[in-house]
């Protein structure tokens, strides 16, 4: 799976959780860039990402995820 594939799948999770069709993520998207991406939804999104890719992030890994690019890289590292 490429980074682009992961990004598209994460984008679909965002659309599902935020109940929006027009979510356009880039690697540089950060918390606050996307309407509706608040603390509560962040928790839900992270949990959905873990379920979707069948992975688990620990606390220190979660702290390092500063933008969507970081999330994609972390997912890739876990599923490889």
């Amino acid at each position, binding site marked *: 799976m490429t980074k682009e594939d992961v990004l598209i799948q994460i984008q679909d999770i965002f659309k599902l959780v935020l109940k929006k069709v027009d979510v356009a993520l880039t690697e540089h998207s950060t*918390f606050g860039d996307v309407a509706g991406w608040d603390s509560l939804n962040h*928790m839900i999104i992270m949990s959905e990402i873990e379920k979707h890719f069948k992975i688990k992030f620990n606390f220190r890994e*979660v702290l390092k995820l500063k933008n969507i690019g970081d999330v994609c890289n972390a997912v890739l590292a876990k599923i490889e």
Partner: protein
Amino acid sequence: MKEIKNKDIVYDVLKVLLTHPQNNAFFIEDQAYTYGELGNQIGAIQDCLVRLPDTVIGIMAENNIQTYSSILAVLMSGKTYVILHPSYPEDRNLRIAKLAGLQHVLCLSTLEQNRLGDNSIRFIAIESLPPLSIEKLKYQVDGAANAYLIFTSGSTGEPKGVPISRNNLNAFYDAYGKLGWKLSEKDRMLQMFELTFDVSVVSLLYPLTLGACVYTVGYKEVKYLKVFELLESYEITFAAVTPSLLQLMSPYFEEIQLPSLKYLIVTAEASHKELLERFRDSAPNAEFVNLYGPSEATIYCTYYRIPSQNCKHYNGMIAIGKPFDGMEIMIVDEDGNSLPTDQMGELWVSGPQVMNGYLNDPKKSALALIQAVDGKTYYKTGDLCIQNADGDLIYCGRKDSQVKIQGFRIELGEIEYTAKHFLSNAHNVVVLPTTREGICSELHLVIEAETFDSVGLLQFLSKKLPKYMLPKQVHSIPQFPVNTSNKIDRKRIAQLISIKND
């Protein structure tokens, strides 16, 4: 600088600004600011403010040194501050500005929201003011003048203004200091609350009276992650947090180690003993303290040092302990008669921390403030408590969380407690009543979980609770929404599960 003899929080901050210019005052978004730098910002803003005839000044709350300097400059100029929030709808900010009679708002020139309504309110861009020393600042204020106005949500939808005078604030400061904190200029203290919420006042000002450093959390960050990142990375020694924030972090408790934390304050909502018990191992050297208080009685007015064992509680909700020095309490029945020890009633508080009345609202003030038979004015908190034989107040829930169904009095907290027990305290639970024509008709149980054994839960509840207390429906949502004060937002939960009241 003229000496002020009575306890005065602003004067004490001013003294530190002059005597500890090299100390770090703030740590904001990975950047430290010294008391010297803070003082120069305050000097510039204060110089601008003293030229204005306004007594009340608005501040657009951002997480930056200019915002914090603005709060201090308003206080040092003897004026009153009101916080507006950039993430609030313009309409709400405008209503607050009108209620407070604002003419000027301090803000950053880069803020997008630098207009309100018809442009009759002027915005002052703080960065445009050249730094100025505070050495010649003349601080002398009237104790009856207001320090700040806090707006709380009113049941009618119109924000309610709570004016807190300098006398209120300093009575609080005096009593808070007497709690015996072992803190000094070397401490690193957390400020995670929205500035629209009054707990931010003490989280911000108290460290500055010590010469300590305040570590802030912006509203644009994932709050619970940022808080724990700061606690761990910067070895924070004092942190006041909401129980909801701890609950969000609870999946990671086993990975968190905070040996430097000396004090953990839980505040703003009921704290559950099991949650704190699970957090003990993460903060092995910290004293846990529950601080309680309505905004109307200035931030906090009771305290309970939470023991690691045999913590006093009611349905799992930790006791709120004893009143602050100078404050008096009464537990009363529905007719306002004082109740004896161990009987549950509404908590009334009296003393120098209690406000004089809501802003321009004598009707609401008359409903909230009452002269008791002892001749003293009490604020009716709306909270249910028991005072035990040791004098400790045990919090039992909100008065309005007590409902009647078919004549039976039901405390929603009791159902929540029982459900949590079945779920091994792994999930948050709320019970929401629905009303028909103003009468409570049925109860909905909402679990913060993706999956759980709903059949088993209902069977368990039916064994533990009388029939009239059993919820009609059980719902689950993966994560409970919290409001800007980080409290569980029951109204939004009701919307999410589509409960309709008529």
